[in-house]
């Protein structure tokens, strides 16, 4: 009993440290769950995913995720928490070399530059206006475009900023089903094990709920403190622990009950 109490205290301390860590530094999100940059490159002739993975590894400092985009795999997506313009340029150079494409960083920037300059349509502009625009872009952003390039609306290389996944969003769908099942199971425990000892009808359910919730918070705290990347495994981990704990508590309580009944029979 004493050991268990010490364990509870240690777990609660860990949870408090975890809360502090989340408040100060947030969780350490894995690439796809963090604020990250997504660069989509269209390679219509087809490509080998392992080549692009290798190029991304060679050119981008951060950990990258490379996966096919579009159902016919004519585009590839490279994602990382941060990708600098130089890194994109190097990546595109390697792709150009391998697949005979001619992508440049300015292809990627065109759309955002025109948006920033509030230019909606190039085709409606006069030659003079376009010449002025080209020189303005060169002066402000350092990229030199031709009239044809500005008029071309296709986007062979795109970039997007992807917002991070909120941990609460990841877990909010758990709260209601876990709370409902937890309450029903607690009531069942109260009724089923009331024979165990005098106040078992209240102690058993409260202890069960307390331990279930404590364990879940403890796992999240360990993830936060140890800076383990938050990723797809989190939901599975939490549900598995919840169910295993529930099974173990039930088997243990049933065993206690059986022992008590055998003792009474004697």
């Amino acid at each position, binding site marked *: 009993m004493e050991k268990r109490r010490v364990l509870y205290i240690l777990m609660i301390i860990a949870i408090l440290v975890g809360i502090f860590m989340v408040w100060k530094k947030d969780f350490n999100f894995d690439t796809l769950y963090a604020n990250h940059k997504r660069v989509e490159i269209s390679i219509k002739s087809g490509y080998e995913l392992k080549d692009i993975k290798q190029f991304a590894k060679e050119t981008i400092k951060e950990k990258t995720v490379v*996966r096919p985009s579009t*159902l016919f*795999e004519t585009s590839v997506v490279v994602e990382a928490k941060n990708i600098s313009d130089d890194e994109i340029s190097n990546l595109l150079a390697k792709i150009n070399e391998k697949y005979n494409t001619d992508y440049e960083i300015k292809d990627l920037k065109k759309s955002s530059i025109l948006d920033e300059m509030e230019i909606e349509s190039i085709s409606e502009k006069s030659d003079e206006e376009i010449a002025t625009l080209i020189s303005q872009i060169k002066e402000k952003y350092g990229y030199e475009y031709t009239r044809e390039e500005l008029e071309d609306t296709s986007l062979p290389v795109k970039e997007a900023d992807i*917002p991070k996944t909120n941990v609460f969003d990841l877990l909010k769908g758990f709260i209601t089903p876990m709370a409902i099942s937890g309450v*029903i199971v607690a009531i*069942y425990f109260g009724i089923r094990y009331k024979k165990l000892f005098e106040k078992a009808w209240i102690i058993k359910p409260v202890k069960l709920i307390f331990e279930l919730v404590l364990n879940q918070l403890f796992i999240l705290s360990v993830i936060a403190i140890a800076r383990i990347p938050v990723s797809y495994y989190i939901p599975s981990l939490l*549900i598995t622990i919840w169910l295993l704990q529930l099974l173990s508590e039930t088997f243990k309580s049933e065993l206690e009950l059986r022992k008590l009944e055998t003792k009474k029979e004697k």
Partner: protein
Amino acid sequence: MKKEGITKTLIKIIAVLLIILVCLISFFGIYKRNLNNWKQFLPDFNLSKELTGSTNFSFIVDDSTEEKELDEEEPAENVEEATAEETVEATDETSEDEPTTTEVPVNAPETLNVDNYKKAKDIIEKRIKNFGIVDVNVSVDEQNGTIIAEVPDGTKATNVAALGSSTGKIEIIDTETEEVLIDRKMIKKISAYYVASDTATAENPTYDLGISLEFTSEGEKKLNEISKIYIETVDSSGDTTQKTVTVRIDGEDKRTTYFSPDGTYTTLNVTLYQAVDIKDEQIFNDRYNECAIYQAVLNEDELPIKYVTGTSSYLESNLHDDFIWYVIIGGIVLFAIITLIVIKKYGKKGLLAAIVEAGYVAVLLLLIRAASVSLAISGIVMIVLMSLVNYLFINMLVNGEKTKQLKTFLVNMIPFFITIIVFVFSKNINITSVGMVGFWGLITCIYTFLFSLLLLDERNDD
């Protein structure tokens, strides 16, 4: 006595062969010739987007402007102030050169804040879930309000653009004066419906499709109030005139109607498509789908900000191939360990127990395929967990009188079963997946019990 022994051995051999057959079918599939290749006969596993791929939709805050008529009392300068840096441009001029309309942003600058971005994100997420796409991740960029919705690729995915870009404003207005008579707050629930149209015949079955509005008590009171005013009247010369109401959704007039003054109304059916021929299934389904989108959108709050659809792209999972192989290898290793343990513990009976366990996994996987259970990663973990639970069950059955052990097992599983049943009804893919796998896992325990009676019964063990 000897004959009885031979029969029992024969039954055991048949049972083992049956299990092996089920294992082969479940693990390797049944293929039939289809032109030049072989086609899997069994239904595919319904894997979640994390394991297959997803379509990503982006919704961008609408930064366009719209024309707004200036109120007579409101001087043009006030509007200019209200719209801050936005261009205020006269589009029509009165004789006194006073502008009558002005360009205003569709989203007022004061509405563009983090709270509204988060609220919009929650509303869009709920709409997508209401539409029946449970496996959805929605995130918001708190700097610019851009919302990214990630849904599994499939027929329903194509509707996500409409679910995110509709503002979701519904009102019943006076057709003539445009005075709002009933707004969203007075509507309790909206459901898509289809009923046989008036012109339908046995040869030509046609249906009216639309949405049915159910009102709050206040709304119902107001509806019955207006049903006495917005009616058809006949004047002294016999001419009929109708005073009508219009159901307006997102600024678009959807239905104009009038009431029968004698009726008492609790609901209002808004027909969006009349006499749709059911023979053209594609058109019928598309039209009904549109009604279902209205249902999903209008049952949630109105978006505080107007959004437009940005880009959409399909992204393959980064886990798929590797992850599935790791799971298969992990499963084989786990099964081998369990088999070695039970053989060491129970000898020949242990080998039979391992066969029963393999059969359990095979039957469970077949049921998961047949029931189209959405398999998320948590569901795959649950298959492993259920295999361990089944192993525990087999262990109990080997160690004692079977009926008594079955009772003990069932009692032990009650809290687990309660949890599983609650999980089945969840709207979270990870929880539902666990619930469904757990449910079918427990049902499959019936197989374990029956085959244990055949293969692991002491009396049969000769």
